[in-house]
């Protein structure tokens, strides 16, 4: 029996499979989608407080068991959020989880003729460089791995998904490249802005784009509409400089010369005192902003959260 939501009939038949559903973003997406149609979650973590109508399978996406999930439910779309970003995971684990896991997922998408695949990539695949144009379009080269090797997995995933455009044209593949996502999520930019005082690099104050996690969820919802395919840069409210963002948060800012910051962070990283890999410092030094015109025109996406709401969201849910 396939549950069909009352609102849009046959177009909504089938379930949305979300990998990495137990992450904070995954949970929010699940909450947004489960009212519209069936949702199937895949994650190796448990999902303790899940809504009752969500089917959750606690499996590793590299395992054969994933196939059972595809077999058991009529999957109309796959949303891949399960990209491992933990900078502390070993490089081998990282790579096999991300690349081998995603390859498995693609295999089943092909085999079960899933009509829609959405990958949540990141604007970080372009990488912060001094020679970046102020607004990178979707065609810009993915140079993020030039100085920061941990992002190479994500670039590889992005490329794998891109190859799907011609390998499996009947599946509508959507790659979303959002800018820094802020909110209760535990990602590098949110963790960075939760610090007090916030470190900035002396003599640098780059322009940045941030977006609220709720806006990311909306962008994914829009990407799930039938007929949408392609690569989209997604950005939130208007860009702001790092110092303006810190001012909105009302935190102290300490500016440290680049050489010192780099040396200290490298040392702290090797002593496991910080979760920020040293090459990520470039994000508070150079611009990595995107041109989101395509998302606004084709996807019909416009951020609902203001700059203040977006920035202040990093402090929500803390106690």
């Amino acid at each position, binding site marked *: 029996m396939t549950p069909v939501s009352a609102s849009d009939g046959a177009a909504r038949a089938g379930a949305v499979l979300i990998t990495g559903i137990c992450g904070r973003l995954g949970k929010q997406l699940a909450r947004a989608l489960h009212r519209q149609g069936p949702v199937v979650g895949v994650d190796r973590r448990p999902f303790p407080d899940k809504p009752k109508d969500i089917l959750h399978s606690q499996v590793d996406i590299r395992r054969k068991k994933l196939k059972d999930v595809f077999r058991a439910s009529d999957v109309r779309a796959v949303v891949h959020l399960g990209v491992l970003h933990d900078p502390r995971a070993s490089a081998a684990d990282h790579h096999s989880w991300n690349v081998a896991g995603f390859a498995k997922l693609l295999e089943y998408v092909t085999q079960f003729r899933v009509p829609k695949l959405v990958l949540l990539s990141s604007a970080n695949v372009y990488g912060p460089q*001094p*020679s*970046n*144009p*102020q*607004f990178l*379009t979707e065609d810009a080269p993915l140079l993020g791995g030039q100085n920061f090797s941990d992002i190479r997995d994500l670039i590889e995933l992005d490329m794998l998904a891109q190859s799907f455009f011609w390998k499996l044209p009947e599946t509508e593949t959507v790659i979303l490249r959002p800018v820094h996502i802020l909110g209760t999520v535990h990602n590098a930019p949110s963790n960075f802005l939760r610090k007090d005082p916030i470190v900035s*690099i*002396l*003599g*640098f*104050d*780059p*322009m940045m784009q941030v977006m609220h996690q709720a806006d990311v969820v909306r962008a994914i919802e829009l990407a799930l509409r039938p007929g949408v395919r392609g690569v989209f840069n997604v950005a939130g409210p*208007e*860009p*702001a*400089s790092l110092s*303006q963002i810190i001012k909105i948060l009302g935190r102290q800012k300490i500016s440290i*010369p*680049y050489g010192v910051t780099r040396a200290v962070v490298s040392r702290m990283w090797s002593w496991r005192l910080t979760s920020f890999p040293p090459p990520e410092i470039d994000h508070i030094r*150079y611009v990595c*902003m995107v041109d989101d015109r395509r998302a606004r025109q084709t996807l019909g996406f416009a951020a609902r959260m203001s*700059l203040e709401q977006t920035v202040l969201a990093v402090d929500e849910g803390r106690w």
Partner: protein
Amino acid sequence: MRGVAPSLTALTRISAFARAAPAFFRGLSGAAEDAVEAGLRRVLGESFADKMSRVPLTLGPTGIDAFGLDPHWARPAFLAVALLHRKYFRTEVHGIENVPHGRVLLVANHAGQIPLDGALIAAAMFMDAEPPRLVRAMVEKWAVGLPFVSMLFARVGQVVGVPENATRLLLQEEALLVFPEGVRGVAKTFEHRYELADFGSGFMRLAVETRSPIVPVAVVGAEEQYISVANFEGLAKLLGMPAFPIVPQILLPGGLFPLPTRYRLWFGEPMRFSGDPDEDDAVVEEKVWLVRQTVQAMLATALEQRKHVFW
């Protein structure tokens, strides 16, 4: 016991100072801000806010544009350039009414070891044109990696020199200043003054693509501000710098400052080009040559009319 009392009073004194210090510095920076405001009012003849309100700009709600331009933050820099323009170099401006409204490419000769010519063209467009314009210029990628410099450039409206940025600014109807000679021009040695180096052709493709008029600008005065006798290109490359000029005058007291030559800026009639932005180099070169000849001819006339380098 006796030792404790003085150290206690010292502590209270220190803590009193620490409590008063922020207010003191706030007062100091407030006073500095007032001085900048007053200086700007004197040199502009009106308040900075009034002047800015007439500048066609696309600032976001945060008062800063997407490229990082922040006029309010950059007021001290504007004041410094305004003083250079009016008092130090006493710039003469000719033909600024030729600059059309909306998108425009200002193409100028480049010289003088440090790009003061760009700053003075921008000052002329802000202070002498009506409505005032904020000129955007492109900076070397090399400068973007320098602390403070990169921040200052962004706040006064300079952007990284890549074609995507230039196209976007022109499509936003901004005035864009380009020096097609690039570093070859700035690093010119003294005996080559007022000889234009080769022009790159990127600006022409940009103008054709965005249908922007080109206003040729001749800058007289920059070429004598620092007398460079040689440029050590090998050493520059080694240090990762665009040029390494040898300027003997810096050994003299106050020699770090440029010589107070009198600047003359000549804005020519707008030139309009059409065609295909991707056409053959040979075709583009011809149009580039036309602009280069115009600037060279304007330089020749301007030099002829100049009575003296310093006044």
